[in-house]
């Protein structure tokens, strides 16, 4: 009768929107607001410290700065290497954890336990174990494998970021592993059985059948890990060198620089990190959509 009256579904939709509004507002304000203000600042617009004219100077500065480029390469190295190693080891662990065996629940519990341990704790653990004066080097000295603790190869504050990678690998194996294990269990072993019965040996069955089946899941999980390790601050801050530092650390250094003019550059770096992470998240969503369609 009344054409202005809301249909039942419309009303339902409206009430859902109203209920979601506070949460959405917080996300929009904090996230998009932060992003927008960061973006403005990276364009040299920051009235509070007397910057008023828009320009691309900060971007120009960082992309011509050798230090920034070194940081970018280092950050890619950290993210790529730790993601790759963690993915391979995660797939291997998931395969080991798949069959039924005695005590599987306990093993599984310990496997996923460090999902709950903060990254910071892991970083402290890496320091404690792998510093030149750390436990591992002292044990190796004790076993006469090396002469002095100082002979232990640098694994923390080192140019190859080994300590950082160890920490990430340790932390991300169970993250990827739990996802892969869930996929393995839901796919079941029958596809491999078919392959074996058709003449594939163990390796062929894994390579030709199991791996393609779990690959979309592995890739999705890896992209998340990559995006995280690319943008995370605390681990490279604690375990990395100061020069070249990982991008998030460099951005932080610039932001806290006494020279206020470095602020737009810090923001520009943050924008680069956000841009790359966004690209990766989009890739992730696309991949998972393809996966779901199949």
């Amino acid at each position: 009768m009344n054409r202005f009256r809301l249909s039942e579904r419309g009303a339902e939709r409206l009430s859902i929107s109203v209920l979601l509004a506070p949460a959405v507002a917080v996300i929009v304000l904090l996230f998009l607001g932060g992003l927008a203000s960061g973006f403005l600042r990276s364009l040299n617009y920051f009235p509070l410290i007397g910057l008023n004219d828009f320009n691309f100077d900060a971007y120009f500065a960082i992309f011509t700065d050798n230090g920034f480029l070194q940081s970018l390469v280092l950050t890619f190295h950290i993210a790529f290497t730790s993601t790759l190693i963690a993915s391979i080891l995660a797939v291997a662990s998931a395969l080991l954890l798949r069959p039924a065996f005695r005590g599987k629940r306990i093993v599984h519990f310990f496997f996923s336990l460090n999902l709950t341990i903060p990254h910071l704790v892991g970083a402290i653990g890496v320091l404690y174990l792998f510093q030149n004066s750390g436990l591992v080097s002292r044990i190796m000295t004790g076993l006469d494998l090396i002469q002095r603790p100082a002979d232990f190869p640098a694994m923390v504050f080192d140019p190859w970021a080994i300590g950082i990678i160890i920490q990430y690998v340790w932390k991300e194996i169970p993250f990827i592993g739990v996802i892969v294990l869930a996929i393995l269990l839901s796919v079941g072993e029958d596809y491999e059985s078919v392959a074996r019965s058709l003449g594939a040996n163990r390796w062929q069955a894994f390579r030709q059948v199991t791996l393609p089946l779990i690959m979309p899941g592995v890739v999705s999980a890896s992209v998340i890990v990559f995006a995280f390790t690319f943008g995370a601050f605390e681990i490279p801050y604690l375990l990395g060198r100061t020069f070249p530092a990982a991008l998030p650390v460099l951005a932080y250094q610039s932001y806290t620089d006494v020279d206020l003019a470095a602020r737009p550059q810090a923001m520009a770096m943050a924008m680069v990190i956000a841009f790359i992470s966004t690209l990766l998240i989009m890739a992730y969503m696309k991949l998972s959509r393809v996966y779901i369609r199949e």
Partner: protein
Amino acid sequence: MTQVTLSGLTKIFDQKSPPAVDNLDLEIESGKLTALLGPSGCGKTTTMKMIAGLLRPTAGDILFDGDSILSIKPEERGAVMVFQNYLLFPYMNIADNIGFGLKMRKVNKKEIRSRVEDMLDLVQLPGFEDRKPNQLSGGQQQRIALARALIVQPNVLLLDEPLSNLDAHLRDEMRVLIRRIQTEMGITTVFVTHDQEEAVVLADKVALLFDGRLQQFDAPDSFYDTPNTVDIATFFGGTNFIPGRYESGEMTTAIGKFRAPHSLVPEGDAVLSIRPEAVDLGEGGENSVSGTVLSHVYAGRYARFQIRIGNIEIEAVTEPGQVKLFADGDNIPVRFDPDKIWVLGPNAAEQPAGATTA
């Protein structure tokens, strides 16, 4: 071709539950189609997986042409299993699915392509090379799964309920196709099913399994005419049972004496079984008693009557025309053809396990 022998084959998954397959002895004839029949959960798939080498038996042996193959890897046994749910590799097209086994054997691409084409012709899906499994119907996927198995020219073909996910019309078509291919190629084939009709229609010989144990291994008609136990007769359905005592070729029951020359037991407590089709209505004389028509159903090609004799109810299936002769409530003579009566032991427990009849 290959003769498959199962000898004391046993699979125990966990100690707390009874064996999934229990001391199974079976002689699967070379080049024949043998059905492995039994209700869901009786160990059919487990048996197939052990033959294919996908599961390790807890005890017993599997022989191909007299040689134990337990130590031979699944990929080298030449026993190919086709699973109930097809399991085509979802990310491969149809040609790659069918050619999989040849690719594993490092056959060259050109030969694979031509043999894939032959296989698609054989399963009557020519031109399907480039499609993806999810673009195919269930029946088509099943054919592709069959083609993928046949292309490697298996010594033993293991089909696990290949028809149970198909609708009735497709099932008939696939039955014919499977039987034709099997006969043409002469592959030793084990066909798993829980449908007794499917088993008797398709198979040269049927092995019936209950709870992991072999109940009877026989030609299909024996399961109807001379079942080993009441349970088996019940599984095949529709039989009338009348308990009593068997002595010198005669069954004495609560509703009278019947001459019964065919018996599994020599004498003592026994059960007379007679199929509804063998009950003659309106015929007196030897082996006949008087009964009352309780109800009847006209089913087009036949008629079905419920008859009460004394305090026992039996079923009779007759020519459709007989509905005109007898009305509900009529008292009529009912005759059991002596040649079609089969006398069995009183219960399953007293039957020798795995007993067979000629």
